[in-house]
């Protein structure tokens, strides 16, 4: 019987593969895709089931596809299906489905990940009409197929915001009479309104400009070896390629914009980084415009360029494959590629840092090049490595200068053709500005904002656009604003100028929306709705310790409120000792009016959490939020603060199953005890088992992070950002090699509340009160509580949980944060820095939750974890219990910050002022009690449910996920439900 079935599936697979091979061998329209500009794509790939009931291979050689009845000894890649059903589904499923099956561990891939993606692309060539029809059906049934442009107009028109007034209170506010700026609305800025409409109403398109130009250069000049067959100095190679890219990119000035330059040739571009994860979209190129979630447009030209010229060149030249080929495909890499325990961000980017922008604004790149040249002069010629590294930095800066000059030329050209005299003047001014900056020191606010943007474009041409952050823009731009204001004489001029400053910052915000990170469909499930998370940080204290709130702080808040967009991700530092109540109140009001931003940080608490590193006070006070929430010492620190999303719950599951991970079906961790054999006599012995599994996973993820770090050193050192950060010039060392003044790696430890509540259930019910045996509890957990409703009810009602105000649960949560912190602290990263522990989750609490079985806490299989370290929704009806418990978590264990979500719903009968007062009271007291960070969603579940049903009415409904903002309508279903099910506290 077994044998017959085996035969049937194997035969079917064979027929299918033969059909596939025949088509590609015979049809020229398909066969041409077996080739790239470098020649035939030669590789072999195995296809099998876990049981071995199916085992065959495809061999591609010199334009011929052959089906092999047995899997040969050496293969480039292998796709293993959990069972025959999954295999059958995969054959005709849309490419995005294959990725999702990988995430769900129904498909396991081995070897170079690009090959399965290429096969995916081939399948979509063959079955395109079928796949597109499927995707369209899916989009319809999920109500994703509405008219985005019309929805955009509607959402902008419906905005009306009540607003409070304030007197001038903060000493740093010198020019604004009412710092809340209630006299302005979006209607006063038609230019911004138009740009906002473009942002909300335009579908993003894949942009091939960056990879195409870069690949062109590398083909010409070599990657591993230069033209003379000498091994390249990686820094010099990257610098020259970057310069070529910046010189040859199209200089674009958007119609009517006050800020020149773009990161893409598209209105909204998805910039590709094939040296990182760019090839991940290979399989979806044909179908990505039709996928239900966040579809992209893609030109036929782009498909040709990417498939023929770009992707084949990078198949083995990216971070993942470098580790696989050069470090022996270690276990840690295999764990990462199963998605359930961790996600290592260095497969995508080494980002999440903040450059020394005030320095480049003040000195210009010219000043920095001078510094580099002086350093070269004082470096002996024998120190070749340092001299080369410095030379690379200089070349990179020349690249950015060239781009600015091209923009200046473009502005002048446009000015000549412009008939509108007002716009003509603006273009003439832009030509002048880009002719001077960022090469020379900035003089005006317009100079500074344009220089910031041009430098920012450069950052994203060298590095993946994921989590690079802008830093303390209110601090760094205030001097230019003040200098401009001081030149003005009369009130009218001053008023006009303030209006201009608001508009200019608004243009800058909307410039930041010109690009999106590449999200292959799997990413819609892992990082749903996320943009680049370009964090801006406001307020707090100055490096000297004074109140930092100034005019620009309030101008940024006004722009944040008017635009209410997801990115830039606005973070506010609130310093209890120095900042005014009026400032905190304004932060609360902007949250109320935008429903979800800015996130509020307790300045002193965040700084206290970093005490162990003994950073000099002046540097510590200059911290900014990075990506989501994480602290970076601005301009001096490579903290890659989101190096990994770390699923702590995987360790709990492995402790429950004696080292086996249930979804991965893998005896992965150490044998820490068998519940069924009675190995755990007390709670402590189980906690130890959990701790050992956690340590095992942390060891693995740190190892992989360090190996990926080496891959970055080899594939993509970053001389450009090295020149713009303190340390690398003096040390003559690239930031990827530890050149920055401070080095660390930051983790996001996910599942704190779920683990705390699970451990509390085990402690209370199994060991303290002996209401249930450990085996009974395990039986219930492994059957998803199907036959144990009474036990499930008892857990939910009788076990004290985190966020309920229970001291023991709080102590358990503190113990877990300390454990995670201490375990990561044992490791040193490849740049010689420490690992930090953060407790936030982007959106991975949903993704990891979907890959996790039921838990002793009563959380059912597949359900989302709580976001960040937010308590479970049923923990308490009283929001104050939540606020108090989170505030009492020890700061020193959370040195990569936290994300604490609070969903509040204003009472219909309360006034705007009363609602602001209520939010203020929560935020203020939470900070008084020591809470580090809080982020609000001011929206009811009812509204969210309505938005699920009628997305066309909610195009700009902003929500806070865990650390970042997203538009609710762009989220996958599971994330939408997670938001709806969050605890909702009436006000």
């Amino acid at each position, binding site marked *: 019987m077994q044998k017959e079935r085996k035969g049937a599936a194997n035969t079917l697979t064979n027929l299918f593969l033969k059909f596939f091979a025949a088509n590609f061998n015979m049809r020229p329209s398909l066969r041409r895709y077996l080739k790239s500009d470098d020649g035939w794509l030669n590789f072999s790939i195995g296809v099998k089931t876990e049981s071995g009931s199916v085992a065959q291979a495809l061999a591609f050689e010199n334009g011929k596809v052959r089906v092999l009845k047995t899997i040969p000894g050496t293969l480039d890649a292998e796709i293993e299906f959990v069972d025959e059903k999954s295999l059958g589904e995969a054959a005709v499923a849309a490419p995005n489905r294959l990725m999702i099956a990988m995430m769900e561990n129904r498909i396991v891939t081995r070897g170079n990940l690009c090959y399965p993606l290429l096969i995916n692309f081939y399948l979509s060539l063959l079955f395109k009409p079928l796949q597109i029809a499927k995707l369209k059906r899916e989009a319809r049934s999920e109500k994703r197929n509405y008219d985005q442009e019309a929805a955009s107009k509607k959402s902008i028109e419906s905005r009306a915001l009540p607003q409070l007034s304030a007197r001038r209170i903060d000493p740093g506010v010198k020019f604004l009479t009412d710092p809340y700026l209630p006299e302005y609305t979006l209607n006063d800025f038609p230019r911004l309104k138009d740009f906002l409409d473009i942002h909300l109403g335009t579908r993003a398109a894949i942009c091939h400009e960056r990879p195409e130009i870069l690949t062109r250069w590398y083909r010409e000049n070599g990657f591993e070896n230069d033209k003379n067959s000498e091994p390249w100095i990686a820094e010099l190679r990257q610098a020259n390629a970057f310069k070529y890219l910046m010189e040859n990119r199209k200089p674009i000035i958007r119609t009517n914009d006050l800020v020149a330059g773009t990161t893409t040739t598209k209105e909204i571009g998805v910039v590709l980084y094939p040296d990182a994860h760019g090839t991940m979209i290979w399989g979806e190129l044909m179908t990505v415009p039709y996928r239900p979630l966040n579809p992209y447009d893609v030109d036929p030209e782009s498909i040709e360029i990417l498939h023929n010229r770009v992707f084949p060149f990078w198949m083995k030249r990216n971070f993942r494959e470098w580790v696989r080929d050069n470090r022996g495909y270690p276990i840690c890499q295999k764990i990462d590629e199963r998605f359930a325990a961790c996600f290592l961000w260095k497969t995508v980017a080494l980002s999440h840092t903040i450059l020394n922008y005030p320095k480049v604004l003040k000195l210009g790149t010219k000043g920095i090049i001078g510094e580099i040249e002086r350093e070269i002069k004082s470096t002996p010629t024998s120190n070749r490595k340092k001299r080369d590294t410095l030379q690379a930095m200089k070349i990179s800066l020349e690249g950015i200068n060239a781009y600015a000059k091209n923009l200046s030329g473009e502005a002048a050209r446009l000015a000549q053709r412009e008939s509108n005299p007002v716009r003509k003047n603006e273009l003439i001014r832009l030509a002048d500005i880009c002719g001077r900056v960022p090469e020379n020191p900035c003089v005006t606010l317009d100079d500074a904002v344009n220089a910031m943007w041009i430098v920012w474009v450069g950052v994203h041409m060298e590095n993946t656009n994921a989590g690079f952050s802008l830093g303390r823009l209110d601090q760094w731009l205030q001097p230019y604003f003040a200098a401009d204001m001081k030149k003005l004489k009369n009130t009218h001029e001053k008023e006009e100028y303030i209006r201009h400053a608001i508009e200019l910052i608004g243009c800058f915000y909307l410039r930041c929306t010109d690009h999106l990170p590449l999200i292959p469909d799997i990413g819609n499930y892992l990082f749903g709705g996320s943009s680049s998370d370009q964090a801006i940080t406001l307020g707090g204290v100055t490096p000297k310790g004074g109140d930092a709130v100034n005019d620009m702080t309030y101008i940024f808040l006004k722009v944040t409120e008017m635009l209410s967009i997801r990115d830039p991700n606005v973070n506010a530092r609130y310093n209890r000792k120095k900042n005014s109540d009026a400032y905190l109140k304004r932060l609360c009001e902007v949250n109320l009016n935008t429903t979800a931003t800015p996130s509020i940080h307790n300045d002193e608490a965040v700084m206290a959490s970093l005490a162990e590193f003994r950073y000099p006070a002046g540097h510590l006070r200059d911290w900014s939020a990075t990506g989501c929430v994480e602290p970076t010492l601005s301009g001096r620190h490579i903290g890659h603060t989101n190096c990994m999303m770390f699923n702590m719950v995987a360790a709990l599951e492995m402790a429950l199953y004696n080292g086996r991970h249930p979804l991965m079906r893998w005896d992965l961790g150490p044998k820490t005890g068998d519940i069924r054999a009675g190995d755990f006599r007390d709670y402590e012995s189980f906690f130890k088992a959990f701790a050992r599994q956690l340590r095992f996973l942390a060891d693995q993820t740190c190892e992989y992070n360090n190996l990926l770090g080496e891959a970055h050193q080899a594939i993509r050192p970053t001389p450009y950002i090295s020149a713009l950060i303190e340390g690398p010039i003096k040390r003559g060392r690239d930031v990827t090699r530890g050149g920055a003044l401070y080095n660390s790696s930051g983790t996001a430890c996910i599942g704190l509340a779920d683990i705390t509540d699970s451990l509390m259930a085990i402690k209370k019910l199994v060991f303290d009160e002996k209401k249930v045996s450990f085996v009974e509890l395990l039986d219930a957990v492994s059957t998803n509580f199907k036959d144990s409703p*009474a*036990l499930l*009810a008892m857990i*939910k009602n009788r076990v004290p949980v985190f966020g309920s105000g229970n001291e023991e649960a709080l102590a358990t949560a503190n113990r877990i944060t300390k454990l995670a912190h201490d375990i990561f602290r044992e490791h040193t990263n490849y740049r010689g820095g420490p690992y930090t522990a953060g407790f936030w989750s982007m959106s991975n609490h949903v993704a990891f939750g979907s890959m996790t079985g039921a838990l002793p806490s009563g959380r059912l299989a597949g359900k989302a974890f709580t976001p960040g370290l937010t308590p479970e929704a049923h923990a308490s009806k*009283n929001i104050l*219990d939540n606020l108090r418990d989170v505030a009492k978590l020890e700061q020193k264990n959370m040195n990569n910050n936290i994300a604490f979500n609070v969903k509040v719903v204003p009472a219909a009968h309360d006034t705007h002022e009363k609602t602001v007062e*209520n939010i203020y*009271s929560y935020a203020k*007291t939470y900070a008084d009690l020591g809470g580090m960070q809080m982020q609000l969603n001011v929206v009811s579940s009812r509204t969210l449910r309505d938005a699920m049903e009628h997305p066309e009415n909610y195009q700009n409904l902003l929500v806070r996920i865990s650390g970042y903002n997203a538009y609710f309508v762009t989220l996958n279903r599971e994330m939408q439900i997670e938001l709806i099910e969050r605890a909702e506290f009436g006000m």
Partner: protein
Amino acid sequence: MGNKNSKSPLILEVKGNSLDDGPGIRSVVFFKGCPLSCVWCHNPESKKVAAEISFDAGRCINCGACREACPEGALSPANPYYIDRKKCTLCFLCADACPSGAIDRVGRTMSVKDILVKIMPDKPFFDTSGGGVTLSGGEPGLFMEFTSRLLVALKRNAIHTLIETCGFFNLDRFMKMLYPHLDMIYFDIKMLDRDDHVSYCGLPNDIILDNFMELNRAAKQDGKKLLPRTPLIPGITDTAENIRSIAAFLKKQKVDEAALLAYNPLWHEKSVKVGADDPYKSDRAMTAFAEHGVLERCKALFAETGIRC
């Protein structure tokens, strides 16, 4: 009045983060037991002084643990309210056995210290928001000694205090034992007609009105806030006649601010849980949320006399 309850009352709940029971963020202590028996009582479980048992059918998972635990055979899905309260001896073995929390004890003994332990963690929120503690019920005035001790303890901890009272209490004892420790008094004036008051609230209203007049005089003198409040019960208290009479009465007392409370029908569900008779369970007006406009109409009647609300 009050004397018979010199011992500690049962407490229904200490509820945190209340934003509608006085200024700022507050904790509300709900006392069990009230001298009145208003037919619409929003907290029907607070009417009786003695402990009760409640059953929440929505939470029950029908596991049968309670039926096994009950020595009296008082529990059965066949009973109208699940619990046969004639058989029940309030031993609460069923509540201890219930995993889902569907069966629960209504009213628990709490010492002043117990209450403070529950309240104090929220003090920082009171301080930021100008909030504090509200005593409600039931009728805290029914337990003068305990309430007095509680108020003294709250004031010792510098907590803002407010009482919500039905107005039916011994004035001398109130003035001596509670009044000095109160920052605010919310005083219900439900109906002005004496006979109506008897038939809907179980007792005449003379004492209530007298108490209000006395308290008003004292509060004016001491600069304490005394806020008269009228719940708007459809067809009972929200009639133009009743509202006009209350407004006129208050005007006469030179009151310039009062509160009108929109009707909330959620008490019906609570009634079922404690197995109380509910003659209004099929009454359309009494089972729906306040009609739009009722509040505005009543406010307008108050406004005619110049009273703010």
